């Protein structure tokens, strides 16, 4: 893996849910319509960075996180972790992945088993992965300088210094031994302060009594490094360290989760995620269930831990201030797709996608300076992920839908015409109730003389604003076609005049430094960038 390769590469990830897929449905052969929670998502996460995944509730960001960890089976796509496809892993490789990639959940009240003590909860990853991974009896050949050893085998206790003080059993003379790894790949490696031994696979025995060094001089010099404590003791120590590291006290290990506050429980969840020293952690809304006062503490803790353990984060959140505070890069999600990815400063200072812009606008500000700022709040609801809009999924709510080229029209008017068209296409207009009772006879078509009145009444009900003359004419022609209940003709007429590129073509997220999936940028989206190298 070269330095440029990302730690995690998500490529075309899809996750559909088929609801009501019951025996009865299958019997009757109803074709279930999937909920497209995640629909072709691609992004990279570089080693050591924090990538934010932001979007409204229900846009699929949590599903993305869970699917990429393999907690849900993907519908399609691949996720590479350190260059290997996660979904192809099995056996030991899968175990390794499980060890390297962890998750911190949103709800600290559901993420801890209420029947397990805190100690048990944090110990669980250790026992699942059979930690410590050595049998405590690693044998290796190291360069040992001995001085006055009178026995063949001595047991050494590591001291503060790299010169290990050897206290031979049975009161034989004290000797000084330097234990040093011959090469860096060897299993035993006494580090600079001599107190911790990293046994190749990552066991850190930090307390000096943990370590026993036996020197055997019979054929060459063999030093046997062993851990003196039982597995249970080692785990207990490790759990104590972890719990204290996240800011709780070790005497709380025997308590149950319900005795802790939300913030403390989230810390416990973090300790559990870190127990196996993962490289990559998915933070699924880690602070959104917490009090504001506690959020900052937890975020700072996560920040410290990232620096301390070289962690890579995927932070899923709907809270833009959290994203800005913590992330290096941000991916914005809308309705199962990523619409914009960029470095956090670029994205916040210069949002490209109208959706990103609207999200940023929606953040309440304490200052009155911008009281008069033209806020573009989003209108309408998120469309159903069962039946997402064609083309650009945001077009139904987008304040910057692109009108056809020859059309000069105000965005607001265009918006009105678009929603009118949509209602006609869905036949979501009640013609019967137009005008007074019985005024118009729809059965045989509205008579010619009554038609202008019908059109006027209908237009009055469907459109609040007056239209420019040119559009007025088109709309009236279309509405007149409704008078004979010719829905298709009306819809076709409106489509002919007002169809936008946003609904015809799906915009693609490009590559590069700050790509965006929006027709406003089109092919040229990257050309607006001043070329520069990634940090």
């Amino acid at each position: 893996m070269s330095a440029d390769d990302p730690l995690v590469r998500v490529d075309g990830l899809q996750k559909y849910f088929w609801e009501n897929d019951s025996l009865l449905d299958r019997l009757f052969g109803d074709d279930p319509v999937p909920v497209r929670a995640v629909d072709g998502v691609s992004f990279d996460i570089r080693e050591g960075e924090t990538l934010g995944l932001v979007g409204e509730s229900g846009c699929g960001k949590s599903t993305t996180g869970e699917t990429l960890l393999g907690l849900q089976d993907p519908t399609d796509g691949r996720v590479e972790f350190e260059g290997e496809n996660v979904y192809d892993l099995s056996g030991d490789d899968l175990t390794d992945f499980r060890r390297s990639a962890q998750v911190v959940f949103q709800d600290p009240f559901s993420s801890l088993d209420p029947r397990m003590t805190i100690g048990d909860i944090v110990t669980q990853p250790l026992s699942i992965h059979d930690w410590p991974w050595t049998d405590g009896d690693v044998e290796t050949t190291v360069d040992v300088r001995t001085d006055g050893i009178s026995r063949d085998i001595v047991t050494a206790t590591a001291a503060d210094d790299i010169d290990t003080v050897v206290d031979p059993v049975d009161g034989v003379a004290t000797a000084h031994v330097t234990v040093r790894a011959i090469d860096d790949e060897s299993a035993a490696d006494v580090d600079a302060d001599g107190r911790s031994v990293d046994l190749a696979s990552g066991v850190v025995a930090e307390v000096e009594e943990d370590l026993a060094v036996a020197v055997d001089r019979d054929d060459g010099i063999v030093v046997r490094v062993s851990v003196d404590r039982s597995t249970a003791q080692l785990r207990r120590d490790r759990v104590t360290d972890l719990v204290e590291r996240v800011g709780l006290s070790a005497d709380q290990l025997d308590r149950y989760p319900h005795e802790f506050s939300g913030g403390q429980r989230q810390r416990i969840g973090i300790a559990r995620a870190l127990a196996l020293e993962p490289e990559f952690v998915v933070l699924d809304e880690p602070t959104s269930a917490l009090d504001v006062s506690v959020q900052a503490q937890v975020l700072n803790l996560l920040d410290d831990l990232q620096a301390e353990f070289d962690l890579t984060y995927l932070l899923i959140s709907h809270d833009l201030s959290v994203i800005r505070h913590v992330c290096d890069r941000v991916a914005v999600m809308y309705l199962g797709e990523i619409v914009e990815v960029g470095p956090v400063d670029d994205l916040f200072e210069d949002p490209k996608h109208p959706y990103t812009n609207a999200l940023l606008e929606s953040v309440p500000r304490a200052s009155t300076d911008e009281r008069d700022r033209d806020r573009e709040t989003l209108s309408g609801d998120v469309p159903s992920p069962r039946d997402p809009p064609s083309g650009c999924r945001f077009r139904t709510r987008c304040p910057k839908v692109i009108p056809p080229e020859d059309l000069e029209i105000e965005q607001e008017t265009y918006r009105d015409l678009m929603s009118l068209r949509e209602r006609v296409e869905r036949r979501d207009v009640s013609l019967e109730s137009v005008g007074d009772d019985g005024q118009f006879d729809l059965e045989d078509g509205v008579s010619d003389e009554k038609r202008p009145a019908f059109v006027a009444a209908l237009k009055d009900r469907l459109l609040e604003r007056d239209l420019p003359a040119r559009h007025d004419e088109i709309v009236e022609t279309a509405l007149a076609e409704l008078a004979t209940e010719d829905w298709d003709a009306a819809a076709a007429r409106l489509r002919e005049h007002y169809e936008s590129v946003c609904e015809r073509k799906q915009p693609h997220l490009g590559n590069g430094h700050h790509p965006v999936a929006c027709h406003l940028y089109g092919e040229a989206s990257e050309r607006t960038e001043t070329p520069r190298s990634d940090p």
Partner: protein
Amino acid sequence: MISDRIKANLTSEFRQSVLAKLGVVLLLSILLMGLFAPVLATHNPHEQGHTNDAGASYPPYGLSDEVPMFEDGDITYHSVDGTSEHLLGTNDIGQDIYSRFLYGARTSLLVGLSGTLLATAMGVPVGLVAGYFGGRVDDGLMRVADVMLAFPSLVLALALMGAFGRGTIGIPDPIVLAGFADGMPETATFPGMVVVVVALVTWVWFARVARGEAMAIRNEEYVKAARSLGASHATIMRRHVLPNSLTPIIVLATIQVAAIILLESSLSYLGFSGTTLSWGYEIQRGYDYLPNQWWIATIPGIGIVLAVIGVNLIGDWLRDALDPNIEGEGGGGAG
């Protein structure tokens, strides 16, 4: 599984609750009665003919009874007084009711407890697997359960008893063999087929409850967390799903002990029991004599009521003590 903390909760809950104490006293005394029936009994429960000289049964000690007798073509009434030799009187064929009551306790508790254990062992794994995996596994297992549920339990039990026969196991009674109770029956009858049958008609309830719990628990984030740690399905079911579904299962089990005691009594009442030493059988015996000699049916009836109440009170106590979210001493709370 049983931590110090659960023990502490059990004791503190027990100290506070009068009902829990009552339940333990009731169940414990019935348990002791059944266990030491041979020692406590005054007569061999099968021995007939404990009547007065005229052949009339005795009422309980302290009561007297007007017994109709045919004499020279006329009905005359003889007064029969209870005797201290037969504390609770004798039944229609002159068997000592007190002794039979003790042996009946033995049968009821034995069937109630072992039947529940067997039903739990059958139903809980099925329910947990169905609820945890869902989908086709769930569909398959639960259709079987639905079929079982479609039959009224007593009818199903009668049908099964009819099909399997009333196989019983004679267990040598160690107390009698050791010579502590001469003259008592040397073998205790364990109605094995009754136990199997009551388990077969009740396991479905355990499966249903366990399934519902497992379905809820599998979506909890701690289960997702365990999966992201790489725990196997078996581990997750053992460490998370089973312990967290235990409270309703225990509550159900206590209700079922009571229900099975009743079911066993019903079977015995209807004559489908392996043993005549059963409260239900006794009630059936005394049914015909209710207007006059009410004690023959009433005394075993009281036994059933007390056993059911005792078991249910213990169930309440366990439920309160086993749920970690209910603090025993009102302390705790969020830190």
